[in-house]
């Protein structure tokens, strides 16, 4: 494949991996404070792909989930793009009790569908904000976010977003396992970003490491 676009070198990938480790560790701590329970975010497995390769990669990764839920949120700063959080279907229901252990809100908001969506959005906003926020903080940027959107419980083939197919975009996939108290919720976070952002990331990673020379 011809490459006009900036690539990520092995060393840059290592630095990115370490940044992710740190970011996810901090995100877990943040989350725990906000939702008041013990959170474990396993070390994410980081992979950099061209956007065209992403659908195939994702379909393979979600092959065991018959249905998935996705939370999408856009962010912009020097680092700009879209973040996607992918959960297996039913995760929303399991997460509801987390945000509301005493069932205070119960079903005021209407059906369980609405409550599930609300929970996914809130957790999604927190997780994406924590992860993307920490990464950009470590690399010296401040980003703004769009409100999160949820697509709930659809088959994988139907809802993978179009922008993934645009060859102009690069994808950074972080596969991690979210564990909330004793509950395991498998999830993926992946970021789709532009070439300008990738160029910025390379620069920022180099500067980050320079502080440790």
């Amino acid at each position, binding site marked *: 494949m011809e490459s006009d676009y900036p690539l990520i070198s092995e060393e840059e990938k*290592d*630095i990115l*991996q*370490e940044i992710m*480790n*740190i*970011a*996810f*560790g*901090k995100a*877990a*701590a943040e989350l*725990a*404070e906000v939702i008041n329970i*013990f*959170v*474990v*975010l*396993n*070390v994410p497995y980081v992979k950099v792909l061209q956007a065209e390769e992403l659908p195939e990669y994702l379909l393979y990764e979600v092959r065991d989930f018959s249905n998935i839920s996705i939370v999408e949120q856009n962010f912009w700063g020097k680092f700009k793009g879209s973040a996607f959080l992918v959960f297996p279907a039913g995760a929303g229901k399991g997460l509801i009790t987390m945000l509301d252990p005493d069932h205070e809100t119960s079903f005021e908001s209407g059906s369980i569908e609405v409550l599930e969506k609300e929970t996914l959005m809130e957790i999604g906003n927190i997780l994406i904000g924590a992860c993307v926020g920490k990464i950009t903080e*470590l690399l010296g940027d401040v980003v703004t976010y769009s409100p999160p959107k949820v697509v709930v419980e659809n088959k994988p083939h139907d809802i993978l977003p179009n922008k993934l197919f645009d060859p102009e975009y690069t994808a950074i996939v972080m596969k991690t396992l979210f564990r909330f108290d004793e509950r395991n919720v498998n999830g993926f976070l992946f970021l789709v970003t532009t070439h300008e952002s990738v160029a910025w990331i390379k620069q920022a990673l180099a500067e980050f*490491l320079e502080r*440790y*020379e």
Partner: protein
Amino acid sequence: MTRKILIVDDSPISRKMLKSCLPKDEEYELHDAGDGLAGLEKFREVSPDVTFLDLTMPVMDGVEALEEMKKHDSQAVIIVSTADIQVKSIEKVTALGAFLVLKKPPTKENVKDALLKAYEFLKESHGI
């Protein structure tokens, strides 16, 4: 005096970052390992003055390595370095005998500070 320091972390970048934060005005004999098991072996072999231990590692994770190291030498100074600074995580490793918890990413200040505390302790407990 030359201090023996062992750094156990699966990320070469992380090890590099920590090394660069060590105070420049001291002498060190540096050792490192890339997973918990190798770290434990090095620990037994070298008997370092201070060990920096990452928590999330393959083969044997930091928590298990910590337990084993403490079994081998209950007075060992082991500094857990992690980005996950939840109160529960800190409590857990402290209960297992971690000397202190160092927040990632390391800075020259927090590493220097941690080492000073470690040396204090070593002086008092071992007279070194």
